[in-house]
């Protein structure tokens, strides 16, 4: 029994990890674009970025997920999402990427604006281009500043993936809960659901160690 349950939970956790990884890969760069939008000198663009951030941060991720999964199908004749688990995963990924990009963008904005303006000016008087100033001067100082809030947000993301259950994405909580109802010939099993906590704890423990290591790597300067 144990091995059957573990096998099913592993499968579910794989889906959890997949959603986590895809969200991270999409939201990290998208957040930077939104952050630059929010700081843009062109007011309409700035206004657009900030409105997006307000709407996304101001509404529950669960609601966004439901809207992204169901509403396009109601407006168009057929749902744009493929059927089955693939479609559910794609919709989840889109909702998570947009949601997390908005949170990341605010962290980035704080990180960039936290770098003293004198740093940028020093680069300017040395004849550097905007791009050179960002990549060679601002970026690393910004990364150092955002590691603690980003690690917080990324650990939250690991746990938030369970929200995708609302559109029946078969992630680890879904897999554990299935044993309570009926799965793999078992029903009424309570412990698999609780056992999912072990997966989250182990993975978040590894993430915590990783971010601690990054913080240490960046501690050579102030």
């Amino acid at each position: 029994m144990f091995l059957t349950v573990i096998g099913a939970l592993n499968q579910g956790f794989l889906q959890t990890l997949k959603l986590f990884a895809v969200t991270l890969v999409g939201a990290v760069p998208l957040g930077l674009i939104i952050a630059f939008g929010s700081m843009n000198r062109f007011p309409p663009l700035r206004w657009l970025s900030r409105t997006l951030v307000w709407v996304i941060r101001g509404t529950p991720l669960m609601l966004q997920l439901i809207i992204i999964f169901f509403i396009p199908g109601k407006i168009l004749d057929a749902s744009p999402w493929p059927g089955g688990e693939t479609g559910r995963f794609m919709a989840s990924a889109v909702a998570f990427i947009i949601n997390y990009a908005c949170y990341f963008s605010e962290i980035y904005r704080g990180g960039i604006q936290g770098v003293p303006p004198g740093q940028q000016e020093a680069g300017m008087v040395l004849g550097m281009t905007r791009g050179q100033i960002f990549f060679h001067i601002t970026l690393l100082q910004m990364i150092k500043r955002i590691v603690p809030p980003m690690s917080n947000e990324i650990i939250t993301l690991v746990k938030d993936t369970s929200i995708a259950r609302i559109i029946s994405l078969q992630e680890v909580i879904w897999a554990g809960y299935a044993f309570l109802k009926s799965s793999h010939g078992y029903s009424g099993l309570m412990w698999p659901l609780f056992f999912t906590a072990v997966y989250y704890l182990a993975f978040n423990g590894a993430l915590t160690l990783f971010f601690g290591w990054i913080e240490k790597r960046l501690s050579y300067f102030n």
Partner: protein
Amino acid sequence: MPVLEVCHIEKHFGSTRVLEDISLSLEQGQALAIIGSSGSGKTTLLRCLNFLETPDQGKILVNGKLLFDAADPATQLEGEIRQKRLHFGMVFQSFNLFPQYTALENVTLAGKLLARNRPGFQGNRHKIYQALEAQGRELLSRMGLADRENHYPHQLSGGQQQRVAIARALALKPDILCFDEPTSALDPELTSEVLKVIRSLAEQHTTMIIVTHEMAFARDVADQVAFMDQGVMVEQGEARQVIEHPVQERTRQFLSRYKDS
């Protein structure tokens, strides 16, 4: 022909006039000290020269070449301004060293980035970088920091940081080196080591503009002294003359406050 000519510069921040009809000229190898109380526009003037602020009116010429004319937008194109900035070096009050780079890297970074645009960079990258590093080491040793090249800014004292910043500005061989209150963030002990370096630059006839509150230093080291008050150039002349026998009443009042202390 003067290295630098500033003609009738005006600058407003909102409705506040910070610079009013400022003109000055500077000869090759001369040092100009600008004195005046806080808020008199000294720093804004330096920032205009370095294109960190855009004057509302006036012209700036270097070696007879028109760099900036408020009336001519063609002199204000962003790509060209970057090139024009290289005529000036800037040493900030708060040093503004890049914290993630060592002293030597701070000095060589801009040169390495600029070298990328040089024809023939691809094949000679290694040689060019080595030459820049050798030049950087030489500058650091001129600043008395030969043994500090691998230190990060937070491992250096304020005076050492400012000397690295001076080396960083010198590395690009500017026509005019600007100092914005270079010792105001330092305690007296560290002030003297930075002033010593600036004094030796003056002795080597580096063309400089120094905004400072050190009156004795201005008198002894600068060739010219200019006194600014409320955005106006009140008095300008030979250094000893202005500090010891000012003509204008406002200059006299300002200097008397320093004599008392």
